[in-house]
């Protein structure tokens, strides 16, 4: 028996979650007393296999089908490898592409399936932990099954580092092209524009707490007073209040400024993924339990409509009338 993890790559590079899957997969394999196999599908599979050869991996299966991700190819390839290996656990990334094939694969294999797992313990009954209600609570589940499929949240496990001694084996699959009804035609970088928030030393970042589009000038005035750059969390961009090139987070930009001032941002995991590398994080939010305070260095638990005007005036600026 084995644990099987599926690596992820995009436009020529393995994504970090691939190496996190190795760490999670190794821990789980030890708990189950099995080996760890990693599958890599498409692209430069030999080059990827060399990179994936980290400590803890027993076998790497290379499946040379296609260049970029296609969910139909992935689903068929994984199902065929699964039939060959009969693994205890199938681990996949809880990424945008992971969620584009994992639910279909789990359904087709009739494997009990849990997504976005943040902690995991193997055994006769498998224990998994996930978040619920926007991260306000965690829930644990028992999976009473001999075989199961999971997607694991990126950046929850450390990446496997040291070089390993895995066997690298090409695995031939038979892809039914007629069954594939989605064609990937290319990629585009979303939202270019005038401002590059990844270059800023100081970011004033605004979230849902600003309430209305009419209130945006308040944070614009603060950014101007501090000679900082204005960025935002996702809802502000979804609402069209700021252009997409201002968005920090998983689907936006990853920023690493000296100072990040989060104003009215709760700190959902997708947002934190884009800004946790900031040197110093300051949060202004009325909710003392907001997850942003878990990563903030400094906090002001108060109404942004009182604090921000006071801050603008501290620096001799003038807060706009809202």
């Amino acid at each position: 028996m084995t644990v099987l993890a599926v690596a992820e790559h995009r436009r020529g590079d393995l994504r970090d979650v691939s190496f996190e899957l190795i760490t999670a997969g190794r821990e789980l394999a030890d708990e189950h007393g099995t080996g760890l196999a990693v599958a890599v599908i498409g692209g430069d599979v030999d080059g990827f296999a060399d990179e994936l050869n980290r400590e803890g991996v027993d076998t790497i299966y290379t499946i040379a089908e296609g260049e970029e991700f296609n969910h139909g190819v992935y689903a068929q390839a994984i199902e065929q490898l699964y039939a060959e290996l009969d693994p205890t656990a199938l681990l996949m990334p809880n990424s945008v592409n992971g969620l584009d094939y994992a639910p279909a694969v789990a359904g087709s294999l009739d494997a009990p399936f849990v997504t976005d797992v943040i902690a995991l313990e193997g055994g006769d009954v498998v224990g998994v932990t996930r978040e619920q209600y926007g991260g306000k609570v965690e829930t644990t589940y028992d999976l009473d099954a001999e075989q199961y499929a999971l997607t694991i949240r990126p950046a929850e496990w450390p990446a496997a580092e040291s070089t390993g001694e895995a066997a690298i084996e090409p695995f031939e699959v038979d892809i039914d092209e007629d069954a594939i009804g989605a064609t990937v035609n290319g990629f585009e970088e979303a939202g270019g524009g005038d401002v590059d928030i990844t270059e800023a030393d100081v970011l004033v970042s605004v979230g849902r707490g600003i309430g209305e589009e009419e209130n945006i000038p308040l944070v614009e005035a603060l950014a101007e007073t501090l000679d900082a750059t204005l960025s935002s969390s996702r809802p502000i961009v979804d609402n069209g209040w700021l252009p997409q090139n201002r968005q920090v987070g998983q689907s936006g930009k990853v920023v690493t400024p000296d100072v990040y001032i989060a104003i009215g941002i709760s700190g959902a995991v997708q947002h934190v993924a884009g800004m946790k590398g900031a040197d110093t994080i300051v949060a202004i939010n009325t909710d003392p339990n907001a997850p942003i305070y878990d990563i903030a260095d400094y906090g002001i638990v108060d109404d942004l409509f009182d604090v921000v005007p006071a801050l603008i005036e501290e620096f001799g600026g003038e807060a706009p009338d809202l």
Partner: protein
Amino acid sequence: MKILVTVKEVAEVDDEFEIDGLDIAERSLEYDLNEWDDYAVEEAVQISEAHDDVEVVTVTIGPERAEETVRMALAKGADRAIRVWDDAIENAQYLDVDAKADLIAAVAKEEDPDLVLSGVQAGDDANGATGVAVAERLGFEWAAVVNDLDLDAEGGIASVRRELEGGIEELTDVELPAVLTIQTGINEPRYASLRGIRQAQRKPLDVNTLEDLDLQESAVGSVIERTSMYEPESESDAVVWEGSAEETAGELAAFLREKGVVEG
């Protein structure tokens, strides 16, 4: 053509809340239409407005209380609604992705839609998996996390953009029939008009039981069992400045000056 939209009534938790056993206490919850589904409904209604002869049907799994949310989708322009519920579903210890997908797929088989639109995820459970799982059950094509949709109904192709991480979009053509999971920001969901709200009261809303869908009780069984719910321990070691807004702003200003990021 026919578009089936999955909608879910989601529970939102107050800032201050209590846990009662394996879930949040009912008194700490408020219910609303799932944010992602709001965009999915809007996308379907926009397609029905742009093309002739498009019927928009919503499907939801939920108790009678969820009809308020369903009526909201009808008020925004959906034509009719189906709600799946019975005692066996109510008493299920945990409705996992597999069970939800089976229920929705059973409705889809009855309805035979050309397109199924589903939110990327629900704000409460955040499985992010039901839409693609439904596609697998139906033998439909699919695309997850769609933030742009251009439908060629006659050619039977949906040209979509999938929102990948890091501001990259994948441009993909998907053959119909298909399930697309809709990301927030794809459109601007409308507010229901008073006229729409009035009309919604007269639109058909049918309740289907497992028996109506030719499903056994085992369809809502699961080997996955919730064992605990708790508030994660705060990892916060933030220095919280206290005082009036002027005082805390003063602290922050002093910090920014000391850090040398702001002059003056």
